[in-house]
């Protein structure tokens, strides 16, 4: 067990204890949102960071999840069985939709794929708005949930559980043979083909997995609000995922979680500051500035930038220690250290 695993375990234990240490309702809700959107951003990062696909329609999977639970809870009964039914429905629907979208579009160049997914997500949005008899359009629907989920602390812990599971899953997944092929596709698609891999299949599978996990995040999101309206299909949701991923660090496991925390926290505290000075009512400005600053000064995201610092520092240490000539014990130890370090931020 290496340092990074220990650090993560400590962090998770801390987070489990948090609701018992402090009792601010709003902090709890904020943390829950961070967890849920963190999962959503991680699913997005699988496409953007690990496979090199830019999607502008990720909200559609999030929305499918949110509406599945909302509609089933409202029109059937808020029981555990139906809850489970909603989860299964979400997984099946997102799998089908992501499979079809992938089939149609993954052969296109990046920005065309982006626009295509954007259009399809747009269709979902319009459908949700226009099918008023079912969705009540933009007014949205409120719904009841099984009592168990109503408890804020329990729901907080469940969301945390989802996040941890997703993290472990992605950590495993990206280190697996399959995950490595995805990263190779990101690097050089043609070459992957000539190694005997069916690139298209890999992309579709990545798209499906990403879509299904985004759907799960959508369920949690809707449950946390006990309300769902058309905004879950909006482009802003996709853009949020994009921003969180980029701010945290594209292609790193922990990046999207950190990104989610930063974005949510910034939104929360900036909105709070509105009471202090009117300029903070326009907190979106500061938000936009953050985007610009991140792109200018942290082009590989926060985790990515920190990673580079570490590697550079490590290299310097290495350079000083490394004797000329043959590879010494010491340098191989340093190499190993570097690997651990890589593991620390990479998974």
């Amino acid at each position: 067990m290496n340092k990074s695993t220990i650090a993560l375990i400590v962090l998770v234990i801390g987070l489990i204890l948090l609701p018992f240490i402090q009792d601010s309702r709003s902090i709890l809700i904020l943390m829950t949102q961070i967890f849920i959107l963190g999962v959503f951003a991680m699913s997005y990062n699988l496409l953007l960071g690990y496979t090199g696909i830019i999607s502008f329609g990720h909200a559609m999977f999030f929305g499918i999840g949110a509406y599945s639970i909302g509609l089933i809870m409202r029109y059937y009964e808020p029981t555990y069985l139906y809850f489970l039914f909603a989860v299964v429905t979400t997984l099946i629907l997102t799998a089908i939709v992501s499979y079809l979208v992938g089939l149609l579009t993954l052969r296109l160049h990046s920005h065309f794929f982006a626009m295509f997914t954007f259009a399809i997500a747009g269709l979902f949005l319009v459908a949700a708005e226009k099918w008023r008899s079912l969705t009540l359009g933009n007014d949205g629907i409120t719904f009841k949930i099984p009592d168990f989920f109503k408890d804020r602390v329990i729901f907080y812990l469940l969301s945390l559980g989802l996040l941890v599971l997703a993290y472990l899953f992605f950590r495993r997944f990206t280190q697996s043979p399959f995950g490595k092929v995805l990263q190779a596709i990101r690097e050089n698609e043609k070459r992957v083909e000539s190694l005997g891999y069916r690139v298209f299949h890999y992309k579709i599978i990545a798209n499906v997995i990403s879509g299904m996990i985004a759907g799960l995040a959508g369920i949690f999101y809707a449950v946390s609000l006990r309300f769902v309206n058309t905004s879950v299909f909006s482009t802003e949701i996709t853009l949020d995922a994009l921003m969180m991923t980029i701010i945290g660090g594209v292609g790193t496991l922990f990046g999207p979680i950190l990104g989610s925390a930063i974005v949510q926290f910034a939104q929360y505290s900036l909105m709070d500051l509105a009471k202090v000075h009117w300029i903070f009512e326009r907190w979106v400005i500061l938000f936009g500035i953050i985007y610009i600053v991140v792109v200018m000064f942290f082009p590989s995201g926060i985790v990515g930038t920190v990673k580079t610092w570490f590697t550079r520092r490590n290299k310097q240490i290495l350079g000083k220690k490394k004797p000329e000539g043959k590879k010494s014990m010491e340098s191989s130890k340093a190499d190993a250290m570097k690997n651990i370090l890589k593991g620390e931020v990479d998974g």
Partner: protein
Amino acid sequence: MDTIIETINVTKSFDGHEAVSDVSLKVSKNELKSIIGPNGAGKTTLFNLLSGQLKPTAGEVLLSGEHVTSLSPTYRTRKGIGRSFQITNVFPNLTCFENVRLAVQSKEGVYYNMLSHFTSHKKINDLAHEVLSTVLLDSKAEELAKNLAHGEQRKLEIAMLLALDTEVLLLDEPTAGMSIEEVPKILEVIKQIKETQNRTILLIEHKMDMVLDLSDSITVMFNGALLADGKPEEIMANEQVQTAYLGGLYNESS
């Protein structure tokens, strides 16, 4: 001898210009055939047609008597045609080791394994290390491919091809861009494959000494067409080849 790879009248044109025109070529099993010719003669295009990167405008490509003309590179690789690229074509942000391991993984048929950790694939890891040491890159296993020197990337390129362990190896100027000192090592590797394994090798190369030294047979291409095909000594004696490629210099100097 058995023919393993064959082209029947393949032609490839780009915007009306025929890069490869009407080439019929037979390569026997376990032979090392070099393809020579001036730049722009269509050698790399021919490779692309064999490995599936390009589809011919006309003609057929056969592997062990089976039509593979319409197959994608993926399937041709699986059927046993592996290639290295003239322009270095590795995965820059993966380590050397990971680069090679991807090739081993493909060869071992581990395609869709999503959840087992790589450390549980000892065989794959071992094989990858083995191949890396064959091309003298084992000390660079954990370096990112983009941080390698140009010559080392060429070696990595060859390592990936070796790791695929295909029946047919297409080597596109394996030593291009390598320093003079590195060339003999790579030659040694190619020789080894030729001697110890049952592999068919197609080689594009400009260094005539190397070509003469290694080849069982030589094919000369000129302006997209096949000019001559035969044993090295036949080719060297062929007058047409001399005027077209070797430059008529023999005539002048003799």
